[in-house]
């Protein structure tokens, strides 16, 4: 089932390591982000990427969300979640490398639950990145309901999933 505008964002449990300003280099314990509980009553931007530390993701896609997070907040966004099929340790390290701090929750979908629930799974075994990945997409979720969702036809490109497109749709 694909993620569809007007329908509920599926309930899955992602994991993340909270940013800790007091111990920015520490390895904190992972926390669960339950999409149903965390998204209730909030405007949320979810950005899915095929992999942490990959050239497109690191160079073009997520840094723009970091630098323009204040614009998203100004348009009423309460929570920005970046998610991939990497685990939470990798997502946390990737966030640190981009200076994300607490602007974006860097969540792992290492077991592929979100990919299965949204139909946005991407099998990249053929290029050596493993089978449990997400395609590149962005979604706006208002109080648990999908208000915008676009996936990149070519996951190496950033167009409809980029921060400009999301800002225009808010």
């Amino acid at each position, binding site marked *: 089932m694909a993620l569809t505008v007007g329908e509920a964002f599926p309930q899955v*449990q992602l*994991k993340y390591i909270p940013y800790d300003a007091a111990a920015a280099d520490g*390895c904190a314990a*992972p926390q669960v982000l339950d999409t149903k509980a965390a998204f209730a009553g909030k405007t949320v931007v979810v950005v899915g990427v095929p*992999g*942490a*530390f*990959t*050239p497109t993701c*690191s*160079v073009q896609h997520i840094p723009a969300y970091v630098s323009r997070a204040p614009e998203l907040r100004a348009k009423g966004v309460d929570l920005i979640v970046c998610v991939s*099929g*990497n*685990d*939470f*340790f*990798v997502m*946390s*390290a*990737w966030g640190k*490398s981009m200076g994300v701090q607490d602007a974006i929750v860097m969540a*792992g979908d*290492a*077991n*592929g639950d979100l990919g299965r629930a949204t139909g946005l799974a991407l099998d990249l*075994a053929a290029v*050596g*990145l*493993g*089978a*449990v990945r997400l395609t590149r997409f962005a979604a706006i979720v208002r109080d648990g309901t999908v208000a915008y969702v676009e996936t990149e036809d070519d996951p190496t490109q950033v167009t409809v999933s980029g921060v400009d497109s999301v800002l225009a749709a808010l």
Partner: protein
Amino acid sequence: MAIEVGDTFPNAVLSYIPYDAANPDACGLTQQLKTHDAFRGKKVVLFAVPGAFTPTCSESHMPGYIAHLDDLKSKGVDIVACVATNDQFVMSAWGKANKVKDDILMLSDANGELGSAIGLFKGDQGPGVGPRRLARFAVIIDDLKVVYLGVETARGVSVSGAPAVLAKL
């Protein structure tokens, strides 16, 4: 079935991003490494970890190998390599975070080819880190023959750590 001492190390295709001294922050191109091509005629120390950037790996396992690099080389080791089922981008980034340069080859077994061939996948680690991870182990390979294999059976680093490997060289 897991490999044993005396076995030929299996031929598997792994991927990695070569260290580029001129542009250490650049995103390099993925290269493939066939274990038999790369390890033939060489003495290799390969240590495997369940995951890049995990607390045990980053705080106690990898740093031991970095600290003992000269000792390993002085005992005739040609290649020190680290492998996990993280992809090559993650392995490369983890290497950069640990400043390994080209002293340690950061290899990816994202498709699980090596893990399947050597039978050393970890059991389910519980929700959230994915189902297919390598056990924590170290292996000494001399001209493709396994001469030492230390697999951790509990949390922590003992038989797979650099000191244990050094004692067997």
